[in-house]
């Protein structure tokens, strides 16, 4: 199994890691099969994602997906964020191995849960 340089970079220099102070949209989802876990805390303001932080437990792609997702959605209108697909996340990481697509799926699932809970 080989991972892209972009993915490895997100793993060693995660962007926006942590819990966001003053978040008003939070979700934590897990993959029931492998136990991977992703937590997103967002601050929404007039239909836009102002700030995003993530925490992740699981294999390398799960962590990298959380990291790249926060980068992609900061400043994004909620309407657009709801339309993000796992393919776009995988693409932003320079591709994911076939068996690791579930990591991007977990990222999308957690994002939607956070936005819909708000």
């Amino acid at each position, binding site marked *: 199994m080989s991972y892209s340089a972009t993915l*490895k970079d997100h793993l060693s220099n*995660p962007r926006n890691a942590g819990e966001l102070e003053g978040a008003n949209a939070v979700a934590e989802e897990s993959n029931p099969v492998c136990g991977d876990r992703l*937590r997103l805390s967002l601050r929404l303001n007039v239909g836009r994602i102002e700030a995003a932080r993530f*925490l*992740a437990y699981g*294999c390398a792609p799960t962590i990298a997906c959380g990291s790249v997702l926060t980068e992609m959605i900061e400043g994004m209108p909620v309407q657009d964020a709801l339309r993000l697909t796992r393919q776009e996340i995988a693409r932003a990481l320079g591709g994911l191995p076939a068996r690791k697509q579930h990591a991007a799926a977990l990222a999308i699932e957690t994002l939607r849960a956070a936005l819909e809970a708000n």
Partner: protein
Amino acid sequence: MPRRVYLDHSATTPVDARVVEAMLPFLTEKFGNASSVHFFGQEARAAVDRARRDVAALIQARPNETVFLSGGTEANNLAIRGVAEASETYGRHIITSQIEHSSVRGICDALEKKGFEITRLPVYEDGIVRTHDVREALRPDTILITVMLANNEIGTIQPVAEIGAIVREERERGNRHLRFHTDAVQAAGRIPLNVEELGCDLLSLSAHKLYAPKGVGALFVRRGVRLTAQNVGGHQERERRAGTESVAGIVAFGAASRFALEELEERASHVCLLRDRFEAGVAARVLEIVFNGNREKRLPHLSNISFRYIEGEGLLINLDLQGVAVSTGSACSSGSLEPSPVIRAIGRDEELARGSIRFSFGKDNSTEDVDYVLEALPRAVENLRRLSPLYQKAQAERACETLRA
């Protein structure tokens, strides 16, 4: 370019320069087929015979009890399937352990599908099979016991000599067809081996774990033990393994076995020193870790540690980016969904199994390597824990408890 530290010697070892030198002529001017009658063939045959003596000496066997083949997996296949097929008429029960190498597990699973009954002995928290359980599992129709000499993930050394004694007793009591196989792939070159003391009928070896190339191995088959060949269609290896011998590889295996025997104590005490320095350093620098397996009865070069709250694959890649090569029992890197069955078998929960890392030292590692890893590892663990919701939750709970107290 960061410093590179290879701590994955249980996966494979680099080929020793002296071994390369010994094998090279057999790729070029001494290229003959060991089955040919002419000079070129005889030259190759003599080299294979000499290597056979050297490999046999490593395990204190007779040369004609040593069958060359392609590696540990093939040795395990020939031993287990070979005995199962040859002894089928006497019984179809096989005893093994829960922590065998994946090749042994795979072979037993395949035999089970064909109607053999497999008893998989538990290991306890220390990662060691109990001889009491072996006795309990024995039946009149047991034809084979296969228990590894030392585990590949946690390095625990199994009571093989004691099982060998039980097998001898059992044979004297009338179960003449009972055979005993041990997978010594991880143990060879790291602890002394003597097939008489072990009392095994079959023993698997792999060359690339002892500084020889990949693609060569051997199976010790005690005189008088009948096996059904798995590779047929040639007279090589006294009909036990058909196929042209990999002469250069076998020569390398022979040379590497000679060096392994000569340098056994020196290598073992060197890696043991490094391993102990490493473990003391990790225990002092990283909190919430669990050492896996019995720490006395284990191979001297290996350390297996579970890091709470994080997953092994992320740690492996973080270390890799800092130039440090290790292995993990996390499912993610093996491509399966279940984390290491070995770590699960010693009673660790799923999180600890996923967070297990194997560090395996080699003769060419130095104390500087260990000290470098002791800097890189705490940093990598810290980075991942900072990201882990499990860690954050545990921290928050701890803060609460402190407040309450």
